[in-house]
């Protein structure tokens, strides 16, 4: 078997290394700048990720919804309604709250207590209390109970679709902000990498022209540029991951301690997806720069 492919890869690799070694200080500066930009991006991403998780957790704990039952509903109708509610995907638990229990709870609620005291009878309806895994399923619940004879047609539930929508959109906004920050960071990284590559091509214009004249394929002439920008992406990502770990171990606990209501929690779970995402995004953004930069004819 011929060994020329291996030999050729070895030649290309050693040429790429020699190419890079001659201007290693420029490489270090570029890798450091890209690393700082990616560190800022990954730090923001970590805070957003933890914030999202905290908000989602808080929403989940608050994901209680009441479906109000009309006073005239029969026992069979109530049983059918309970079965219907239990079958909805995302509903983890359904419990019945009687009128008496509702009135009793109202007396402890500062907003409802005056109403309880002013009425002769019991104005508070019985209800089924649902525990939801995700507040986003509220519209599904409302749709399921719509028209049910056991449900109060005027005020069917304690939770409206608009409220659920607002909570879901809060999460979505956070994601969009994080994505926009990532794109800005990658854009800055790409501009820095392009500046490096243009500088390299300018500094080696004669060398590239000679290689072109002696018939070296242009794709091969680009290989050192690709290797160079790939190494910048790897080094920058490594720096960003180190920042991520430092932030996770020191900064996040400090924020949690001084602002306990944020409940950011343990960031360890975020390390791997954020590290892999940073590496993949930096490579996917920077490597095309090596293909875009113009070579001498």
């Amino acid at each position: 078997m011929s060994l020329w492919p291996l030999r050729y890869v070895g030649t290309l690799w050693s040429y790429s290394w020699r190419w890079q070694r001659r201007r290693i200080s420029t490489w270090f500066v570029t890798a450091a700048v890209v690393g700082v930009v990616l560190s800022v991006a990954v730090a923001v991403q970590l805070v957003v990720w933890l914030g999202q998780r905290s908000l989602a957790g808080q929403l989940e704990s608050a994901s209680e919804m009441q479906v109000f039952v009309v006073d005239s509903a029969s026992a069979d109708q109530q049983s059918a309604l309970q079965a219907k509610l239990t079958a909805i995907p995302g509903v983890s638990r359904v419990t019945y709250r009687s009128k008496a229990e509702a009135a009793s709870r109202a007396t402890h609620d500062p907003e409802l207590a005056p109403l309880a005291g002013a009425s002769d009878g019991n104005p508070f309806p019985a209800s089924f209390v649902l525990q939801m895994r995700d507040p986003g399923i509220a519209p599904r619940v409302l749709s399921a109970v719509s028209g049910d004879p056991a449900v109060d047609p005027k005020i069917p539930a304690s939770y409206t679709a608009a409220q659920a929508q607002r909570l879901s959109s809060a999460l979505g906004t956070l994601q969009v902000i994080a994505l926009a920050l990532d794109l800005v960071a990658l854009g800055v990284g790409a501009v820095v990498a392009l500046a490096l590559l243009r500088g390299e091509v300018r500094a080696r214009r004669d060398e590239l022209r000679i290689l072109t004249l002696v018939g070296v394929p242009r794709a091969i002439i680009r290989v050192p540029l690709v290797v160079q920008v790939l190494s910048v992406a790897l080094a920058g990502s490594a720096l960003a991951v180190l920042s991520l770990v430092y932030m996770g171990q020191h900064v996040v606990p400090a924020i949690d301690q001084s602002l306990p209501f944020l409940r950011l929690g343990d960031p360890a779970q975020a390390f791997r997806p954020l590290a892999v995402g940073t590496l993949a995004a930096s490579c996917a953004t920077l490597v095309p720069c090596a293909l875009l930069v113009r070579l001498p004819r």
Partner: protein
Amino acid sequence: MFVPSRAQGSPPYGGPAWDDERAEEAVGRGKIQLSDVTVGYGDGAVLENLSLDVERGDFLCVEGPSGAGKTTLLRLLYGSLLPTTGLAVVDGVDLASLRPRHVSRFRRRLGCVFQSYELLPHLTARENVLLPLQLAQMAIDEPDERADQALEMVGLGDKAGSLPAELSGGQQQRVAIARAIAHEPAILLADEPTGNLDSVCTADVMRAFRAFHHEGGTVVMATHDESLLNAYAERVIRISPRAA
């Protein structure tokens, strides 16, 4: 002694054959045919209706004053310019049909030498010959031996480890010739190769060209040095500047 192998119709090196032009190659290896060729930059023609036949093994000198179009002719021959009109076939390849992605492959069939040597200053003489050989000819056999043999052929076997700055102008030009012939081209194109050299260095460089030519290679050299024409050229064509 390094002996370039130029069997009729065989690929010029160990790389893949150019299948779609193999038939042409069988009859055109080492030859140049220009027929009513016009070439220029932008709207202006530098060479107009030029016809020329160079046979395999010819030593052709192109003579003319500065600005006459010698370099343009050489650039046409190594595929840097395309003919505006006319037929140009170099080493069996019709330049008019040469697609941009095939230019580098076409150039690997030729050897090119330039007035300013075009050596990489941070590489030794041997590396200057070896690197393009290794990068351009993926499947070439024994590149190190070929580089050493090419340097031996131009009389620089003992200077293989020297950097260009440590060599005289003539020696640098001979390294450039070694680089141009290491991959065993059938045609060697040289644009004013002795333009920057004194008479002693010029003689050394011309000996290297002769060695290549004696092995059966075709040489096309642009020069304005009358003494070279008298001493080395088998054929001379003269190009005059176009009237404005």
